[in-house]
């Protein structure tokens, strides 16, 4: 009981001498339990109840003589119990208003007598006797914080024990009391655990939060939040030390919008209103004048209706922010995208440099200088790029927290930029309502890849020191900004010496504001600056974040304009950069809306087939190649496919398809196979005689080109005439030959797809029979990705329409793997498998 009273019970903080038990839920439950214990004590433990206390428990009672009945000698206001100890002293003595009690039996009786006042009596008793155990059993049993040796002491007494009987009772009594103590403690622990005690840090957070609500405007919920003291002790408290011992953390003056200023004490036990502490002093100002609340917000909610009403709205806004940083960037690699050159796969963790800009900003006032000397050495060529790279790696691991705040700001900034996008788009829309394809809405091809769609920029949490490239690139950007043409060209050339394929450098350029400058240069008249800028943009636009930034800065519009330039270098560089940037839907739309498709198609117009090219003609071919690259990127949107066709791109592509150069053929065939999803293109491919060229290129030794050709045939061979053309051009055999390239899954998927579609014609099935295609296909029924399996099984299903082939499938052991595939879940696969199995099942032999 002693421990419980010292630790769990909540005494008024201003306790000195006799304390007061506060009316709190914890105290109330404590009192009730003690009361229960006392009430039942004499009936449960009659012997122990008779034990005479070492010292009487004395307190100021509200009981009067009239409350006492039998067993008591009443003389006027004074009362004496008839029960006495061995020396004849009465066990209870009342001389109003004080009462003294010597045993538990009398305590029990008092409690019973007091009826509705019993709780008050217990409270008064405990307040007067802060350590009742010591009084009951003697000072040696006084409760000492942190140790409990009472049992040991009791044992000592037992050893010495001459009065065996009395000691035994004493032992029992103390055990009972300790039981009570434990019970009290565990109960109050339950309650306490529900209300976490406040710590200086928690209070500080709360205060910061509240301060942020003191903003002007409609959303304002509080007028002001102030500490009474600006001085903060090292432990985080702002109260004078002599108040800290009472657990008080700080005093606040909060002015709500609708009530008087609130003077608040934050203590470890909770927050409550005080007597109005302004400055230190005024003793009674520290007293509690309200209930204790769990935290500041709860207190304010109950004291200020305005606050209660508005805080919920605020809460929402505050909690809303975090999710943006959780979005992980995942670049989808779907079949449509495969095989594009220059793919830049994103790496996690790379975003560390996002903070750079912040840091640069922070450093601008003066901190920059001290970092510069080392850069000079770098510039003199004393440090090789490799050293720098190593250096940077090691630095990457060093995590510093100093940018944490800056990063937070960045996040907010990013949010803003993302949220501003729709506006930007709509403004584009209004500027060029017509564009190429007429009215533009936001619906795009469903087949189009989403690989690169609007992910919010992700920023990883780890901060690293800035690599040296940052400072060098920052300096170069400064020269770009503040230099004439000569200095600009030098800075551009020097910037190209950095490893622009490295994300560090790509993001460094962005973060120091280089992208804006590079894109602005495109708008100047200086051809050299434009070329130099494009050469850099072309490289760094392989990074998806850079692509996005270029699009956001309006770079695509400018580059589309450059396509009109008479300078061929500018043309092909702009086209190649567009090819990189237009990897996401919004960019593709922008290109189209600004007339880019038409201009890109115009670039295709060159004479590729003459044997000996002049220097100028070679440049024309390069321009056409880059134009095709850009169209390839753009052709992933349905509307762009349409726009290419309308701009007359198909005959030009057909002409380029005769080029002997693989680097020209890949983007051309890539575009064609992308567009072959449209019927108009399939017809054109057939009628413009492109099948022949596609078949011819199946025989080349470039897997990527072969894949695009096979893929184009796959898409086009839905049409019977095309299937016949493939056969007539002797395209079936190279397809079967390509089946041996089982390691290249993309190529295999395209090839098997072409074979499947070609097999729809029975003449072709006969050819495949000659080339023993089915035997090979059966071998591909196991351990293949689903996109291959679908095509293989499809081809087998078509082949199995011929009885001879059904036998072949059986002989090659194809039945079992086919049946096994029936357990799959891929719908397209199941459709084909059931068809193939169904065809095979028509042969009786196959059923055994």
């Amino acid at each position: 009981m002693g421990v419980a009273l010292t630790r769990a019970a909540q005494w008024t903080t201003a306790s000195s001498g006799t304390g007061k038990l506060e009316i709190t839920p914890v105290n109330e439950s404590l009192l009730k339990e003690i009361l229960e214990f006392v009430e039942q004590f004499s009936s449960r433990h009659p012997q122990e109840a008779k034990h005479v206390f070492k010292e009487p428990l004395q307190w100021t009672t509200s009981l009067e003589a009239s409350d006492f009945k039998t067993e008591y000698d009443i003389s006027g206001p004074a009362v004496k119990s008839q029960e006495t100890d061995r020396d004849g002293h009465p066990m209870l003595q009342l001389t109003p208003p004080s009462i003294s009690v010597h045993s538990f039996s009398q305590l029990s009786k008092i409690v019973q007598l007091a009826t509705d006042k019993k709780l008050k009596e217990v409270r008064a008793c405990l307040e007067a006797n802060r350590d009742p155990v010591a009084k009951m059993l003697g000072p040696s049993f006084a409760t000492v914080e942190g140790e409990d040796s009472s049992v040991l002491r009791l044992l000592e007494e037992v050893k010495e024990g001459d009065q065996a009987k009395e000691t035994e009772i004493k032992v029992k009594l103390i055990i009972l009391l300790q039981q009570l103590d434990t019970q009290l403690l565990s109960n109050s622990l339950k309650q306490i655990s529900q209300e976490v005690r406040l710590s200086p840090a928690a209070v500080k957070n709360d205060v910061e939060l509240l301060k942020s609500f003191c903003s002007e405007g409609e959303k304002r919920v509080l007028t002001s939040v102030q500490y009474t003291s600006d001085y903060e002790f090292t432990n985080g408290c702002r109260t004078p030390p002599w108040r800290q011992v009472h657990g008080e953390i700080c005093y606040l003056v909060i002015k709500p919008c609708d009530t008087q200023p609130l003077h608040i004490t934050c203590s470890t036990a909770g927050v409550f209103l005080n007597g109005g502490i302004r400055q230190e002093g005024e003793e009674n100002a520290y007293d509690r004048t309200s209930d204790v609340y769990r935290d500041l917000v709860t207190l304010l909610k109950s004291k200020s209706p305005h606050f209660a009403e508005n805080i919920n709205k605020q809460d929402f806004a505050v909690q809303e922010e975090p999710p943006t940083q959780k979005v992980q960037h995942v670049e989808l690699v779907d079949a449509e995208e495969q095989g594009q050159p220059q793919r830049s796969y994103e790496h996690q963790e790379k975003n560390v440099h996002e903070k750079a800009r912040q840091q640069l900003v922070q450093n601008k006032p003066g901190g920059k200088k001290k970092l510069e000397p080392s850069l000079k050495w770098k510039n003199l060529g004393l440090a090789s790029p490799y050293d720098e790279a190593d250096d940077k790696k090691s630095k990457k691991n060093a995590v510093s927290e100093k940018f944490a705040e800056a990063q937070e700001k960045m996040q907010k900034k990013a949010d803003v930029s993302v949220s501003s996008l729709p506006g930007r788009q709509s403004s584009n829309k209004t500027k060029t309502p017509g564009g190429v394809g007429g009215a533009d809405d936001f619906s795009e091809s469903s087949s189009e890849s989403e690989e690169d769609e609007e992910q919010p920029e992700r920023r990883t949490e780890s901060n690293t020191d800035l690599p040296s490239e940052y400072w060098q690139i920052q300096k170069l950007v400064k020269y770009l900004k503040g230099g004439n043409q000569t200095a600009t060209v030098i800075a551009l050339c020097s910037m190209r010496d950095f490893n622009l394929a490295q994300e560090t450098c790509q993001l460094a350029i962005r973060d120091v504001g280089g992208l804006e400058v590079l894109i602005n240069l495109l708008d100047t008249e200086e051809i050299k600056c434009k070329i130099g800028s494009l050469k850099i943009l072309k490289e760094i636009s392989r990074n998806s974040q850079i692509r996005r930034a270029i699009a956001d800065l309006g770079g695509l519009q400018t580059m589309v304009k450059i396509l009109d330039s008479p300078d061929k270098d500018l043309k092909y560089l702009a086209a190649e950069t567009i090819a990189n940037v237009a990897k996401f839907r919004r960019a593709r739309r922008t290109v189209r809306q600004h007339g880019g498709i038409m201009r890109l198609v115009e670039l295709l117009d060159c004479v590729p087939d003459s044997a000996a090219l002049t220097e100028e003609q070679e440049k024309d071919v390069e321009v056409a190649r880059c134009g095709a690259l850009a169209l390839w990127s753009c052709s992933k949107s349905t509307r762009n496919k349409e726009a290419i066709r309308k701009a007359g791109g198909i005959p030009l592509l057909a002409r380029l398809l005769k080029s002997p150069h693989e680097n020209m053929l890949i983007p051309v065939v890539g575009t064609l196979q992308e567009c072959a999803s449209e019927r108009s293109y399939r017809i054109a491919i057939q009628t413009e005689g492109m099948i022949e060229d596609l078949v011819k290129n199946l025989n080349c030794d470039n897997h990527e080109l072969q894949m695009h050709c096979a893929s184009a045939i796959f898409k086009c061979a839905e049409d019977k005439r095309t299937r016949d053309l493939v056969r007539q051009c002797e395209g079936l055999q190279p397809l079967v030959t390509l089946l041996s390239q089982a390691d290249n899954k993309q190529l295999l998927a395209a090839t098997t797809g072409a074979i499947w579609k070609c097999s729809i014609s029975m003449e072709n099935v006969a050819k495949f029979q000659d080339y023993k295609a089915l035997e090979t296909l059966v071998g591909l029924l196991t351990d293949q990705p689903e996109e291959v399996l679908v095509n293989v099984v499809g081809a087998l299903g078509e082949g199995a329409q011929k009885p001879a082939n059904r036998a072949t499938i059986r002989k090659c052991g194809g039945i079992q793997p086919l049946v096994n595939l029936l357990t799959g879940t891929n719908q397209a696969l199941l459709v084909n498998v059931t068809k193939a199995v169904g065809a095979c099942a028509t042969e009786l032999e196959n059923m055994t």
Partner: protein
Amino acid sequence: MAEMSAMNRKLIQNLAETLSKQVKHFNKTEAECLIRLFNGLLGDQSDRRVGNGLDRGKFRNILHNTFGMTDDMIMDRVFRAFDKDNDSYVSVKEWIEGLSIFLRGTLDEKIKYCFDVYDLNGDGYISREEMFHMLKNSLIRQPTEEDPDEGIKDLVEITLKKMDHDHDSRLSYADFEKAVRDENLLLEAFGTCLPDAKVTIEVKIVKTV
């Protein structure tokens, strides 16, 4: 007067014929046009001092007005490059020769020409000091900076790092040539001394008219 102009025309045609044989890139008609242009620019002066040609001031005016050059020092150097015999006048022959590089020069010819322009003291090397001299106006000076030349110095170091392949802290012709071949943009690394493509096209139009 008519007689004189007829004689003049005859003279010009002869001159054009000889020069077009001596100088690459221009045919006889083009040479003739350029001679006329030259004579036109010479104006009154031709009566008094025939044979001397364009002086520095006139030449600089042409560079400024026709070819859009602005840097005084570079224009002086261009004048020097045109004035091969160092007599402070650009003669008809020098004019045609110069323009053939200016307007029609191959990359090799242009590299040679630019190097000559940039090699201020003619010692066969572009030194650090020469670079500094040529680049000193290329950056906007920030009044806040302690050393306003710091940026220029840094720019010189950047250029050296990029172009000085033999690491002797100066650019030889070989250094310059290699750097420009690797990156054509560096042809006019130290200041505009050639008309840009746009002007070249305009000049063609002017001539044909």
